[in-house]
């Protein structure tokens, strides 16, 4: 700028001097005229020069204004400008201005890149936080208790169920040492020994844990060694490589272990019930068998001298053989019905006839206990569509159950009626009755009321089978109403023959 002004001034002086020299030959007015003209030209040049400069300044100003308005977000990914206007030419400053512009754009791009990176990082971090929360939440809500220890045998993690089970106060506990938090030594040993193992892989054990109420729970515990993150990498890498390397990576192990506890209480209870069932069945089978063998032997030995005694012995043998057969039928039918392979042949039957027969079958048992067996059958013909043998068995089971759990001198009544167009029969006793809980469970297979176990022998099969027969085979309904000490009433509804045909 200064150089340009100096140049213009120099030009003006040269013009003035030149015009002065030219004027040396003329008169003063002429000289003055020439000088004036020269001055005017010089002045014009100066004004022109200043004008142009000011124009250039304005162009530069516009350039900067445009640059000021550059928004990093307007830049395209490839670095070209979006809304940035092309810079006007601004003479000798164009180069400098362009450099400034490029620098600004470059900075803008960098800012933009950083912004992108920062946004991505924020999203990632939020996602990771959310995932972590989710995993923590899922972990803490898992139904199976889970415990993890680090390689110093200190508790790393415990979910809610584990905390409840072992009464661990996650925050309040002073020591994190597993052996001080968890009383069950077997579990502590399993976890710490798994944590110290050189190789990975699971170890399982069945452990009994007693809770603070003193109740024992059985758990199948699976303990897994935790590998450090380096080791996991090694492990993954080694999966494709040499297996001896994998062992080496495991051997360098830092450790820690996690234990997942699965409640196997139901399984244990079932095992126990099955064992009890086998024991009960063998007892139930041996008892009539013992009768048969004893009387046969005495007959063979000629102990029964008179005909009357022989007949008595044969009667016992016969009734005990029947009893054995009933037991086997009960077991087989229950197994068949449960497996769904039973052959049912339903025919129209007289329910009363069938019930008469059931009464006849259980009469000796009632007499032996001096229980009054009362048959109060409907005078109406009660037609049912039924599998005769099965329904008979259900009725016998209900009656003999009532006789079993009624003390001598009591009464067992069998009634049949037509109710709402359905045949209904009911076995009512004056026996020991059932508690509310027992009444709900009495139809469960092998379930036997604890306090009444010594009262009579049994397998816990008779009532479940009766229920299967009435409900699953005949589409009826078998219910029980009972109160402790006040006897029980089992009521069966069998759809009548006509009803099913319709």
């Amino acid at each position: 700028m200064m150089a340009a002004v100096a140049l213009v001034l120099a030009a003006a002086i040269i013009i003035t001097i030149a015009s002065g020299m030219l004027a040396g030959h003329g008169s003063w007015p002429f000289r003055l005229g020439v000088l004036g003209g020269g001055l005017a030209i010089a002045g014009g040049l100066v004004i022109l020069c200043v004008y142009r400069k000011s124009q250039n300044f304005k162009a530069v100003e516009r350039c900067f204004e445009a640059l000021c308005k550059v928004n990093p977000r307007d830049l395209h990914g490839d670095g070209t400008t979006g809304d940035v206007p092309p810079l006007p030419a601004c003479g000798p400053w164009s180069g400098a201005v362009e450099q400034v512009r490029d620098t600004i754009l470059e900075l803008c791009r960098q800012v933009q890149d950083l912004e992108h990176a920062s946004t991505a990082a924020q999203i990632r971090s939020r996602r990771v936080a959310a995932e972590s929360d989710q995993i923590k939440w899922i972990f803490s809500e898992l139904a199976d208790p889970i415990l993890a220890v680090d390689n110093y045998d200190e508790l790393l993690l415990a979910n809610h169920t584990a905390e409840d089970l072992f009464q661990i106060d996650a925050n309040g506990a002073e020591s994190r040492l597993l052996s001080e938090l968890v009383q069950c030594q077997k579990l502590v040993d399993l976890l710490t020994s798994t944590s110290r193992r050189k190789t990975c892989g699971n170890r399982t054990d069945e452990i009994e844990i007693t809770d603070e109420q003193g109740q024992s729970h059985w758990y199948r515990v699976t303990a897994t060694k935790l590998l450090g993150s380096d080791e996991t990498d090694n492990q993954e890498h080694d999966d494709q490589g040499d297996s001896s390397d994998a062992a080496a990576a495991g051997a360098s192990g830092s450790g820690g272990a996690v234990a997942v506890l699965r409640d196997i209480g139901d399984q244990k209870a079932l095992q126990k019930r099955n064992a009890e069932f086998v024991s009960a069945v063998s007892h139930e089978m041996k008892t009539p068998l013992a009768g048969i063998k004893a009387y046969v032997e005495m007959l063979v030995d000629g102990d029964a001298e008179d005909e009357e005694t022989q007949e008595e012995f044969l009667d016992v043998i016969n009734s005990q053989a029947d009893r054995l057969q009933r037991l086997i039928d009960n077991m087989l039918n229950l197994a068949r019905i449960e497996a769904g392979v039973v052959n049912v042949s339903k025919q129209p039957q007289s329910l009363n006839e069938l019930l008469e027969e059931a009464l006849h079958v259980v009469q000796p048992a009632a007499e032996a206990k001096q229980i009054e067996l009362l048959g109060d059958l409907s005078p109406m013909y009660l037609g049912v569509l039924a599998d005769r043998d099965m329904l008979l068995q259900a009725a016998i089971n209900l009656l003999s159950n009532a006789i079993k759990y009624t003390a001598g001198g009591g009464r067992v009544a069998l009634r049949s009626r037509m109710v709402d167009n359905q045949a209904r029969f009911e076995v009512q006793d004056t026996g020991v009755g059932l508690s509310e809980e027992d009444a709900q469970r009495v139809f469960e297979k092998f379930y036997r009321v604890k306090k009444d176990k010594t009262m009579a022998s049994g397998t816990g099969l008779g009532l479940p089978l009766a229920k299967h027969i009435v409900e699953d085979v005949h589409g009826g309904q078998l219910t029980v109403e009972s109160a402790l000490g006040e006897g029980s009433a089992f009521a069966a509804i069998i759809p009548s023959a006509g009803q099913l045909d319709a």
Partner: protein
Amino acid sequence: MLKRILLCDDEVHILRAAEFKLKRAGYDVQTAGDGQEAWEAIEVQKPDILITDCQMPRLDGIGLVRRLREHAETRDLPVLMLTAKGFELSHEDLTEELGIVAVIAKPFSPRELRQRVDAVLQTDEATSR
């Protein structure tokens, strides 16, 4: 004098078979339907031998024998166990602890039962002489 036997079982036909066989062998046989009934009978008159089932209502065989061992008069009463739960009683410690002279598993042979009773009562007689 006739040797007295107390038979205890909740199965009527088992009771009847053993009673029949032992009566024929010349013993004085009394029967009881459960442990409680047997205990009451023993209190009235102590038999020479008790033959009892294991699983019974009210008072079971083990409970009955335990009670017998708690009382001075019945501490040395010979007991034969007649049970369908043979394997559970094959534990020698329990039979030894309760002083049960023999466990006979059901199904049983009345002939064998009689022989056992004979043997027990004869050695009993021999030692008491």
